[in-house]
């Protein structure tokens, strides 16, 4: 209105009348517009907004089926990927936001308050109906629901719990539900979510507290970790109760997970690995997901515009595997990082570790214990199991090992067999170059 004053071209009453007409016209079209937005448009907006969550796992929960019920659905332990997108990722769940309206202003997030994206909002019934419609046609294993914060954290959490309630109570849905919980919400609501869901998750968002303060000013690391600790103790308690009372309610039988954004702040790989390890130990997480920061349209100015190389995310997942399946401690993984605290991009962290600690090798595959064999670059868990089974029957020669592994060339410098010793190979200065995968044509848009 300030800019209307003093123009002197219209008499005041005309201005007011005109301005009101404009205001109501704008208001009506907006409302009409929001009323008309169809389910398919909402789905496009809210699925697009949810795609930066990496997890689509539907595995590891209690086994259920729909026999004897009124409803639909089963979980059989192993997750199922019903489709794969051209980004190579599995589509197992209907992954949507309840709404992408948000009162928070987290810089890395495409849905932050100050972003220009189109907004939409589902009603809880709509999400439940859509989930069932997809499930009946065997498109999905279940629902992964997250949301922007509307009105308040509690209001939003209530709406999300309502979706799960409709699915479980009204549809008797026995498929998979993953709810993202809101750390700021009332713990009682988060508990409700855990009773309906197979898995709950809270995103720690950024690996460092300072990064969180800078990029997600409305979130607090203490609150996030407090909520994770509460969920952990609820899970432990429910498991304990289940042992003693057959009818004790299940609480998030698929456990809890979290996600960290890589490359949006200054944290290096050592920071990230350290943080992940503290999260695994402290909160007994099933998984820590990494999401390489993707350039999002309408990005905030404090973010790097360049995305981190995708391979960095891959190396972090490899380091995650080393900790979860190969018996490495987080400090050992950190030993594989360079002076800048970053894992090498050209070789995997296990090879990087082995090259740094060459005195550990070569290992005799006919004698070395399992946990040592797991440290040989090129030997995976399956190969190690096969070697251990095979060496019970006869001593292994190099071609025996070759038959049991993917690539003997990679393994050779680090092992001895009855007919093979690497002698000087293990100590060669150019070993890294020999073993690093051949450089491929660089991606056109690689960062």
């Amino acid at each position, binding site marked *: 209105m300030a800019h209307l004053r003093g123009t002197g071209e219209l008499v005041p009453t005309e201005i007011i009348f005109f301005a009101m007409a404009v205001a109501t016209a704008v208001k009506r079209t907006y409302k009409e517009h929001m009323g008309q937005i169809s389910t398919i448009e909402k789905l496009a907006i809210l699925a697009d907004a949810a795609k930066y969550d990496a997890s689509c796992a539907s595995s590891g929960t209690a086994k259920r089926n729909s026999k004897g019920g009124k409803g639909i659905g089963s979980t059989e332990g192993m997750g199922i990927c019903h*489709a794969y997108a051209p980004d190579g990722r599995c589509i197992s769940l209907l992954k949507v936001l309840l709404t992408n309206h948000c009162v928070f202003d987290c810089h890395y997030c495409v849905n932050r308050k100050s972003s220009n994206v189109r907004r939409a909002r589902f009603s809880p019934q709509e999400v439940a109906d859509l989930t069932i419609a997809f499930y009946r046609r065997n498109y999905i294993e279940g629902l992964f629901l997250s949301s922007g914060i509307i009105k308040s954290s509690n209001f939003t959490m209530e709406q999300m719990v309502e979706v799960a309630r409709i699915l479980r109570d009204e549809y008797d849905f026995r498929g998979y539900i993953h709810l993202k919980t809101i750390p700021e919400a009332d713990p009682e609501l988060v508990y409700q979510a855990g009773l309906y869901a197979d898995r709950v998750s809270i995103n720690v968002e950024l690996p460092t507290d300072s990064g969180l303060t800078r990029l997600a000013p409305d979130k607090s690391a203490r609150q996030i970790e407090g909520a994770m600790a509460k969920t952990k103790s609820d899970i432990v308690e429910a498991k304990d109760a289940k042992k003693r009372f057959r009818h004790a309610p299940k609480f998030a039988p698929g456990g809890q997970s979290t996600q960290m954004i890589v490359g949006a702040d200054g944290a290096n790989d050592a920071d990230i690995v350290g943080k992940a390890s503290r999260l695994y130990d402290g909160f007994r997480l099933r998984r820590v997901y990494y999401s390489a920061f993707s350039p999002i349209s309408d990005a905030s100015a404090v973010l790097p515009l360049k995305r981190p190389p995708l391979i960095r995310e891959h190396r972090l997942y490899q380091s995650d595997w080393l900790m979860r399946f190969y018996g490495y401690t987080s400090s050992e993984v950190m030993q594989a990082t360079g002076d800048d605290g970053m894992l090498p991009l050209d070789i995997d962290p296990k090879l990087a570790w082995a090259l740094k600690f060459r005195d550990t090798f070569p290992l005799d595959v006919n004698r070395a214990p399992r946990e040592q064999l797991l440290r040989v670059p090129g030997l995976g868990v399956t190969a190690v199991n096969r070697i251990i089974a095979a060496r019970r029957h006869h001593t292994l020669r190099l071609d025996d090992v070759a038959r049991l592994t993917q690539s003997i060339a990679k393994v050779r410098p680090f092992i001895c067999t009855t007919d093979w010793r690497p002698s000087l190979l293990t100590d060669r200065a150019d070993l890294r170059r020999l073993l690093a995968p051949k450089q491929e044509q660089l991606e056109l848009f690689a960062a």
Partner: protein
Amino acid sequence: MTAMQNVKLGAYYSVHLPEPDDFDFWRDRARQLIQCDVPPDRVSWIEPGGTSDLFAQDGPSRSKQRLPVPDVDARPVRANRRFLSVAKNAALHSDAERFALLYRLLWRLQANPKLMEDKSDLDVRRVEELDKNVRRDSHKMHAFVRFRLVESDEDEAQDHYIAWFEPEHHIVRANAGFFIRRFANMKWSILTPKGCLHWDTKALSESPPAERSDAPSGDPTEDLWRKYYASTFNPARLKVGAMVKEMPKKYWANLPEASLIPELVAGAQKRESQMVSDGARDFEERPDTLAAIATGIHHCRKCPIGQLDNHAVMGEGPHDATLMIVGEQPGDQEDQAGRPFVGPAGQLLDRHLEAAGIDRTAAYVTNAVKHFKFVQRGKLRLHQSPTAKEIDTCRWWLESERAIVQPKLILALGASAARGMLGKTVSISKARGAPLPLEDGSELWITAHPSYLLRLDGDAAVQQARLFAADLAAVKKRLEELAA
């Protein structure tokens, strides 16, 4: 009668399987033959519709040979658990040699019970390969069967979900259980070229092989699913190889979403470079004089405001001012005059500056956004607030001005100006009244925009005017400290 009397030495036997996936039938016959010591090269296994065996040309008499009956006290046939679990799956494979392979393995297992552990044995490797193929095909059936709804006119409970699926192996019957457990209360049929399954919520029935045309051709919900598939895909990371590995092209014909793939892949590289350039502040070099900035903003079209019918308004004031005042954007009058803060809000600002004892002519006065954003309503150009993105885009010019003028104190008027300075949105009520240190050693003071004061009436207007005056007084005091 003993087994030896029963078995004709050197005889050939043919076993006709009633179904291509009848493992139990195979197991019974295999057990019987092994107990009668019939070596693998004397038995042929024929599945229904299968081409006749190796020895068929020798006449029908041999294939009609009745199977020998073993002695009651014949040695039991041994098979370990590993063999059984692998064999059950391998029997479903489409390889015509599978039953012969299984018999040969079972035969060899009698002499070497640990045979299954020898992963270098060709038969063991082959049977494990068959097992793996079948398990994979079953898993893909669980994943890629797509039901289409045939709605019932009378009763929703009668809605029928029908799928067309083309498995590679004889896995249909073996996987009925999965679909029954999952869709126990739904009426469904899975039609395949290898036989069909029908579930009516209570019992399973089977019918002979079907054709694609027997299944419904579409379902409106597939549009939603395709929309979901396209939207959940992140074009910033294209990994077609990883997709095809897990979702081989042979399945694409029956997946409604697969028709989108070529178009999504083609669009992805384009979309990503669009995403980057949208956010890119691809200005080349910072201008090093105010005159260069004035020319630069005149030509700037980095955001939609620059495309409107308006003029860039450059900041004004001494090139070495201690105080820099930042507003939101030029208004209608500023746009016409080509100078900042000359309209109603500017006049109000002048009055307040005078009252606080701040000399406007000694300050460098500019805006966070250099062009006037408006919507045309008849003759009027109605002011529109710039979006966060537009402010962030224009920030580059503001920072260039700062770098040249190097003010010691910056006064930001309103939320847009504050965002232009900080790159993030702050609340005026929380940020006002105290300085924020900036990286270059200068300090930022934030207060309301004078146009906000113009919009208020009554008590609120008086109260806000007082707060505004207090902020300016604090700035004045600080300026004196800095001068001292």
